[in-house]
């Protein structure tokens, strides 16, 4: 190969390589080789594997009759011919020259496009009014066809890869979730089985205190299992977005007071202080928001039972901000980033009372309201949970 050709080819390939979009790359290729191969219109037809009908994937009008538009009906019959006969087709204009002027003298050249060793379509060139295609032209046209195939295939593979990555990461999440669930469910089950069979042992006698201890554990773990199942269903519904939220105007102050009053009847020792500033009603699902407050207050009872609880309400810019603050044991900074994750429980001494889903569910609900929930806390000082809800709901 002579140096000039080599250098030229290098330039062509380099320019093609730089184009991200396969159509732009093809444009660059055709333009580069225009000196040796000229055409008026080019079109690529690809066969849809399902319907077996051909669709136009690419159409350019670069020569005469540009104004005739880049519609590609002119090449369809040749494309179909190429696909059917599995070979290059050259079509000379009809002798009687019927048709509008030059357009009636269409010289067509169709080349097969193989994607992954399968004939998937055709690249068709047209010259209105000639000249006829010489051997060299046909060779170059074939080159174009090879490149077009490669570019289209690369594009399809890229799309497939992106989808595969997405599916894989979905599956990984799913796997993690499934294995976490099975671990979470087995834990209380393991206790129930273990402690009950211990009591059933015929080869030993447990003293009364131990019997009571074991039976209490069985009882508590059964409760935990029940709550876990309940929470998991809730979480699954939220996750798959099958939970319907009914939005209507909600007065957050009234809601918070309702929940607090309810909780108070069960825990009369709990001291709750309201610090409300006037706030407009927001658009929200009252039932679900109540759930969030119940959960936060429930946590406070568990982890800050001796502390006073301050529920504050403020309007901040276009949002309503609720804070639930306690002076309980607080949460260490290293655990804070994980608090709202599914099944996360802060490591600690006590037999774990929660399911690890409460805050996750809260977050899901608040997010469904296009709001935000977060926490600030210091060990030994206490925790403050923040909830922000937009006043206007963007549909």
């Amino acid at each position, binding site marked *: 190969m002579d140096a000039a050709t080599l250098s030229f080819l290098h330039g062509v390939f380099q320019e093609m390589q730089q184009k991200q979009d396969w159509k732009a790359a093809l444009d660059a290729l055709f333009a580069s080789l225009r000196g040796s191969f000229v055409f008026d219109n080019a079109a690529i037809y690809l066969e849809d594997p399902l319907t077996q009908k051909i669709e136009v994937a690419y159409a350019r009008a670069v020569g005469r009759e540009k104004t005739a538009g880049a519609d590609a009906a002119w090449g369809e019959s040749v494309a179909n011919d190429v696909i059917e006969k599995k070979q290059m087709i050259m079509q000379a204009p009809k002798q009687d020259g019927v048709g509008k002027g030059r357009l009636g003298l269409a010289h067509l050249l169709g080349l097969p496009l193989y994607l992954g060793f399968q004939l998937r379509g055709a690249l068709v060139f047209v010259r209105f009014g000639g000249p006829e295609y010489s051997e060299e032209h046909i060779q170059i046209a074939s080159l174009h066809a090879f490149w077009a195939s490669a570019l289209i295939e690369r594009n399809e593979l890229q799309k497939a890869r992106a989808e595969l990555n997405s599916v894989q990461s979905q599956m990984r999440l799913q796997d993690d979730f499934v294995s976490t669930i099975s*671990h979470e469910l*087995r834990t209380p089950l393991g206790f129930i089985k*273990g402690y009950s069979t211990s009591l059933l*042992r015929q080869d030993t006698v447990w003293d009364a205190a*131990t019997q009571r201890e074991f039976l209490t554990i069985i009882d508590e*773990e059964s409760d935990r299992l029940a709550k876990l199942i309940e929470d998991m269903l809730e979480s699954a519904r939220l996750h798959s977005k099958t939970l319907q939220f009914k939005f209507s105007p909600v007065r957050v102050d009234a809601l918070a007071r309702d929940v607090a009053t309810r909780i108070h009847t069960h825990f009369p020792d709990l001291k709750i202080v309201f610090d409300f500033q006037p706030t407009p009603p927001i658009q929200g699902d009252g039932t679900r928001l109540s759930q969030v407050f119940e959960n936060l207050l429930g946590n406070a009872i568990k982890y800050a039972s001796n502390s006073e609880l301050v529920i504050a309400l403020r309007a901040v810019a276009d949002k309503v901000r609720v804070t639930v603050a306690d002076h309980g044991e607080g949460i260490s900074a290293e655990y804070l980033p994980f608090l709202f994750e599914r099944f996360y429980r802060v490591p600690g001494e006590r037999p774990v009372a929660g399911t690890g889903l409460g805050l996750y569910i809260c977050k899901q609900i608040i997010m469904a309201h296009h709001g935000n929930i977060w926490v600030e806390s210091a060990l030994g000082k206490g925790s403050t949970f923040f909830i922000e809800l937009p006043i206007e709901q963007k549909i």
Partner: protein
Amino acid sequence: MAKRILIVDDEPRYLRLLEANLRTEGYEVVVAQDGVQALDVFSAQPIDLILLDVMMPRLDGFGVCQRLREFSNVPIVILTARGEEQDRVRGLDLGADDYLVKPFSATELLARVRTVLRRAQPPAEVGQARFFTHDNLKIDFARAEVWVSDEPVSLSATEYRLLLQFAHHIGKILSSEELLTSVWGVEYKTDKEILWVSIARLRQKLEEDAHSPRHIVTRSGLGYLMPPNET
């Protein structure tokens, strides 16, 4: 002398469950709640058996098992979840001697502990020649020691028992069932996996090339054997 068992689990309720039951059988019990603690406790006193939970999300049970095996052949029973085949095989691969599937009953637990402790006793050799040789492999029955090319080899109790089966039946093909029953017990008769893993580990330790074994040879479809010494 009462056997001492180390329980490694991060759930206090499991520790209580295991400990309460083990104590009724007269075992001494020590506990650890994470890997570091486990290794500390283990190094501080003689331990006859370890119950190790590999389901703990924060404690790397498998890591602990692997680490322990670097310097000890103490019997290890891993506590794993039902249906998690990979956990079981992985545990066995890393050197665990046996496994117990959660949720388990108290009686299952005690039976498993009893079995594993029994297996760990070196078997009494009566009326045998003291030494056995097979090519570059040498066994001293009296001291339960094994050498390959005059280098001492450390085998777990189970691996040693397995090797003995071949040594005592040299030249004879032993089926998987026979091996499982005699080394592990009749309830393990169909547990091929535990046999495969143990044979693989044994080969790693004894053979020059584990893929072309000379001491423990596979007979496809029939079982395994130690080929007779060339006289």
